[in-house]
Each structure stands twice: as C-alpha cells, then as structure tokens.
C-alpha cells in the first residue's frame, strides 16, 4: 500500500514559536506538495517540490518555508507561528504531473 505519513496529527504551539511539519512518502514519488485546508476555502497550495532541493511557491507561501533534502521527505516550516496559521495541513505526493495525488492524514495545528 502506498503511504504518505505526516509526523504529527495534532500540534499546539504558541505565537512566535518555530514549527516543523514533517512528511514522508514511501513510493519514490518525484512531486510533493503542502496544502492547508480551512472551512469554506478548500485546499490551498503553500509550496510544492518536483525534485530534491527544488521548491516552488504555491498560492499562499507567505509565512512558510519548505525543505526537501531527500526525495522521500518534505518539510514545512513556520519560522514564527501566528494565530492565523491555525489550520489543517495536508501533505501529498505524486509520481508525476498527470498522476493522482496521495494525501497524508493531515496535521492539525493550533497556534495560541
């Protein structure tokens, strides 16, 4: 079975803290994505990566950065968490651009 694993299902952080969200896929996929999901807004693309050490901004990159040092791992970093970053974060991967995305179960982040 294909698997996208997100390290934490639930996190609670304080404003100003640095936050790391980790995502690992075991399918040798080239492409990896980070989305945030908010009620009424759907899934919004934060960053994506189509190769190791490559990254591209999505539609809402402000306040976030990413790292992809190994093919199977894609990390989302919040340098200084703010309350408006409270959300569900979904990681996904795909083998190439015209193939399906496989999603992780999500990380629900609450920033107090």
């Amino acid at each position: 079975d294909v698997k996208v694993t997100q390290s934490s299902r639930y996190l609670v952080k304080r404003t100003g803290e640095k936050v790391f969200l980790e995502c690992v896929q075991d399918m040798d996929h080239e492409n990896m994505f980070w989305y945030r999901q908010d009620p009424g807004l759907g899934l919004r693309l934060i960053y994506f990566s189509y190769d190791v050490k490559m990254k591209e901004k999505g539609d809402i990159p402000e306040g976030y950065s990413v790292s992809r040092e190994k093919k199977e791992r894609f990390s989302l970093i919040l340098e200084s968490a703010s309350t408006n970053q409270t959300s569900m974060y979904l990681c996904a991967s795909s083998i190439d651009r015209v193939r399906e995305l496989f999603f992780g179960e999500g990380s629900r982040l609450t920033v107090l």
Partner: protein
Amino acid sequence: QQPVQSPQAVILREGEDAVINCSSSKALYSVHWYRQKHGEAPVFLMILLKGGEQKGHDKISASFNEKKQQSSLYLTASQLSYSGTYFCGTERADYKLSFGAGTTVTVRA
C-alpha cells in the same frame, strides 16, 4: 488562482443525480477530482487531460472543456457512499495544482 466550484453544497436522495462544476480563469493542463469524507484524507477519483475527454469511475463521470477552462463532475444514481466533499484540482502549465473550495454532497436514504 483557485478554481471556482459550484454549487457549494447539494442534498440528494438516493438514486438522484447531481452535477458539480469547476471553472478556472487560467489555461489548464489537467483537471483532478477528489472526494474527502469527514475526518479522512482526500481520495483520488479521476484525472482529465486536455482534449475534452470524459472519464468515469463507477457511476461518477466527468468532462473537461479545455476551451472554456471548465470541468463538470456527474453523480449518477447517487448512493449513500457518495456523501462527502468533492474537490476539483486544476493544474496549470507551471506545475501548480490548485484546488477549489469544495462541494459538500449529502445523500439521504
């Protein structure tokens, strides 16, 4: 940048049909459709590529009109298992895959 989905929500009785629309202001490379049940990850339904093709998945099918930059998802003879939120994802030439706000489908017995 996100595609626009309509309607926002639809309530059906088992056996009824529904159409969900997805439109973009940008030229599209492909359109993806996913369904998400409450508390679960989105699950892939189908991908449509340029060329106006139509695809099917059980009694769920979709079309893609490249010129109009629109796609439609057709739920035929709906079943209780069709309940969930449906998202269209539109891919542009710059590799970005952006999703709409979703359409919540409730199928009642």
